[in-house]
């Protein structure tokens, strides 16, 4: 180690060092010129306006990402007045004219977020810095959504979250520039609780298996609160590592624990695997405490239901939206999406599509792309016709307050897409909650000085 010192002379260090300092000092001046031309980040100056789509095209949620991308492409077509117009004619009130946004044609750029927060942020930065995205949208995990909306707050670019279900997104990590249409774990709990009470009675003993990360914890907490309010007991709540693949060592203790309901606070592949394996352990054929043993999966997605196959039959959960609803908005969207891609849309596709339209509508109503004005237009906005009944974009936490669906795995599916039945539409007044319970601070609406 000490031998190293012999090789260095002060002179050499100084010589090379000075060259570096001069290089680093002078060069930036050449590139920052012209940065003052725009008064806010990516003010569209030409005749197009660019959306930044941040989608998981690889990784565990790639199928959600692909479905979201289809929905965004459809939304962009409809906003530009192409195709059948989709939900533009159904949205009430609407300021959309079908000629782009504020007369500018909508274009989009994409980025593969790989379902990783780091990569999602890098992709969002690229789309903002290089491609001039006026708004970033997409994503299929809460970690991604929280990371990207923090970045968008710094950059002064609006973020319309895609599939994110954690309470934190519009709770303790909420941001002025972040908006969520999707529902959250807390609402799942309030929505699902009464149905569980109705179906399984008030004298039940629940065993939770929970994915060991923030979303899982909020889901477990919400489900515990909802079921204990019914009079259920919680036998045990066990944390399982994310991506455990084999859950057998967590399932064996359930068998003789005295529990008669198993609640799987898992999502994605974890949910597919733990549910499949729980069914193999014979849990659905068991009797415990003189009752039938039941399994509950609080958050459902039809793509995951496809992955779980026959195991999903008869199992209760919640969903943001489902193509089987019978309101005009849902029918129009399902038809439009089905005509374009030959399959009904998933809830991820729906929330993505709606977010894109809502942003466009807010810009039209604000009459500008200037983010603070658009934020004002979105905050407290009340609308209808998007398939979830009357909906409010709550100003306090940027959470959409709308109906929540309680769904059940379909016993007799008529097609490979017909995997879920809607049991109940829980009205939005029931699932509304006090936005202050999760804390957090939205932060300022004034845009960052540069981006």
């Amino acid at each position, binding site marked *: 180690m000490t031998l190293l010192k012999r*090789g260095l002379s002060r002179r050499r260090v100084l010589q090379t060092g000075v060259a570096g300092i001069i290089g*680093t000092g002078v060069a930036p001046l050449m590139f920052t010129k012209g940065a003052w031309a725009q008064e806010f980040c990516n003010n569209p100056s030409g005749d197009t306006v660019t959306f930044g789509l941040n989608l998981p*095209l690889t990784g565990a949620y790639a199928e959600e990402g692909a479905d979201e991308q289809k929905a965004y492409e459809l939304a962009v077509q409809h906003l530009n007045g192409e195709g059948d117009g989709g939900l533009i004619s159904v949205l009430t009130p609407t300021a959309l004219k079908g000629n782009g946004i504020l007369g500018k044609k909508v274009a989009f750029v994409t980025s*593969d977020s790989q379902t990783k*927060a*780091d990569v999602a942020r890098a992709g969002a930065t*690229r789309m903002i810095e290089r491609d001039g995205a006026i708004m970033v949208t997409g994503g299929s995990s809460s970690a991604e959504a929280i990371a990207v909306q923090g970045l968008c707050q710094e950059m002064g670019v609006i973020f319309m979250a895609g599939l994110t279900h954690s309470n934190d997104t519009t709770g303790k990590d909420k941001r002025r520039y972040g908006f969520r249409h999707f529902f959250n774990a807390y609402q799942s709990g309030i929505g699902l609780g009464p149905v569980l009470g109705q179906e399984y009675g008030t004298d039940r003993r629940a065993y939770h298996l929970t994915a060991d*990360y923030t979303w899982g914890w909020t889901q477990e907490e919400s489900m515990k609160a909802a079921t204990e309010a019914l009079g259920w007991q919680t036998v045990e709540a066990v944390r399982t590592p*994310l991506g455990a693949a084999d859950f057998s060592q967590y399932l064996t203790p359930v068998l003789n624990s005295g529990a008669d309901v198993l609640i799987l606070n898992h999502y994605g592949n974890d949910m597919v695997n733990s549910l499949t394996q729980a069914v193999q352990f014979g849990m659905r054929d068991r009797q415990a405490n003189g009752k039938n043993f039941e399994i509950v999966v609080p958050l459902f997605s039809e793509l995951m239901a496809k992955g779980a196959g026959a195991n999903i039959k008869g199992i209760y959960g919640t969903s943001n939206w489902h193509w089987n609803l019978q309101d005009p908005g849902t029918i129009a969207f399902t038809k439009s999406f089905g005509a374009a891609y030959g399959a009904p849309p998933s809830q991820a596709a729906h929330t993505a599509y709606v977010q894109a339209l809502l942003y466009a509508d807010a810009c039209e109503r604000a009459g500008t792309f200037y983010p603070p004005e658009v934020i004002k237009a979105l905050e407290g906005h009340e609308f209808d016709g998007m398939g979830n009944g009357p909906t409010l974009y709550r100003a306090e936490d940027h959470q959409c307050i709308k109906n929540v669906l309680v769904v059940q795995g379909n016993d007799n599916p008529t097609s490979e897409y017909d995997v879920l039945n809607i049991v109940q539409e829980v009205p939005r007044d029931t699932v509304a909650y006090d936005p202050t319970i999760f804390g957090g*601070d939205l932060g300022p609406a004034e845009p960052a000085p540069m981006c």
Partner: protein
Amino acid sequence: MRVMSRNDLLLFVGFTVVVLAMPIWLHPFGAAYPDLLQRFMIFGIFAVGFNILFGLTGYLSFGHAAFFGVGSYAAVWSFKLLSLDAIPALIFAVVVSGLFSLIIGYVSLRRSGIYFSILTLAFAQMSYNLAYSVLTPITNGETGLQLTLGDPRSLDVAMGVSTVGQPVPTLLGQSLGGFAGFYFCAGFLILAFFIAQRITNSPFGMMLKGIKSNQTRMNYTGFNTKPYTLAAFVISGMYAGLAGALLAVTDPLAGAERMQWTASGEVVLMTILGGAGTLVGPVIGAWLIKYFENIFSAINDNILRGFWSFLPEGADNVMVTISSKFVGEGWFLTLGLLFVLVVVFLPGGIMEGVRRIAHLFDRKPKDKPGKAAPRPQPAE
């Protein structure tokens, strides 16, 4: 005895020029935007540091991402608790990751070969799994550690500095966003490269290379090799920590997934793809992989259609369908194919390819078999 040979000096100056001019020559490739340039610098540092361990001593660590992650966490905590200034954060991160790598290195270096690799992998995976779950109070788990308005920032408060709006890291009050952040990182990459060059050519570096070629012989000649390998391990861990901290400076978020084994594997791939044991190779490998990840993955069908539009009707659709398998979401496939091709045909990585091409143009082949120092490479 000359301190720095003419070739070394040329290599260093050439490298400096290439790095500082990146915003210009990367423009035609669509990569000249600050965030990606910053990542080029940061992962360049990471790979240069990894090469000090792997390229010189031959010890293949499969857990280097842990030090990268620890550096990020340390830097973000420094932003939260001490000050938004980048300098204390970098110092703190390098010290913490140095200590962390000292502990892991001390234990892991008791074994060699694949046993060493598995030990480092095991430590890194443990760090990752714990950071994701049990250590959430420190790491903020899946969501990642972020700056908030309510952070204490005791040094800033003591100095009377107050921040308005969303807190972002600064350097002596100057913002580090955009190209300023790039030049800040570039300065560190050049410094890191300089130190690596000095280490490689120093007697210490020769010692490490001796360990690589035959450790037993080194031991028989009376050298205790362990302090040397441990020193190399810690230095390379500190490089990783510095890189992690710089990533937190340019983007103040530390997530657990940057400690996962795939992230460790990525730096191995960067180094070997570029050319392990060479100075420039790992940096080029890092740039290439990051370029693929950020630019190739963003090419969608619309862009492809524009690219092939010169072809007649029908043929362009075929080409779009074929090429879309390799870009956009298929970028990983292209990367995999590239690895296989490089390893099969260019075992020394891209640097060997460069050397072969240079050899072709070299009219009078000079054979200098004993020359270990890397030859100057043409700037690409």
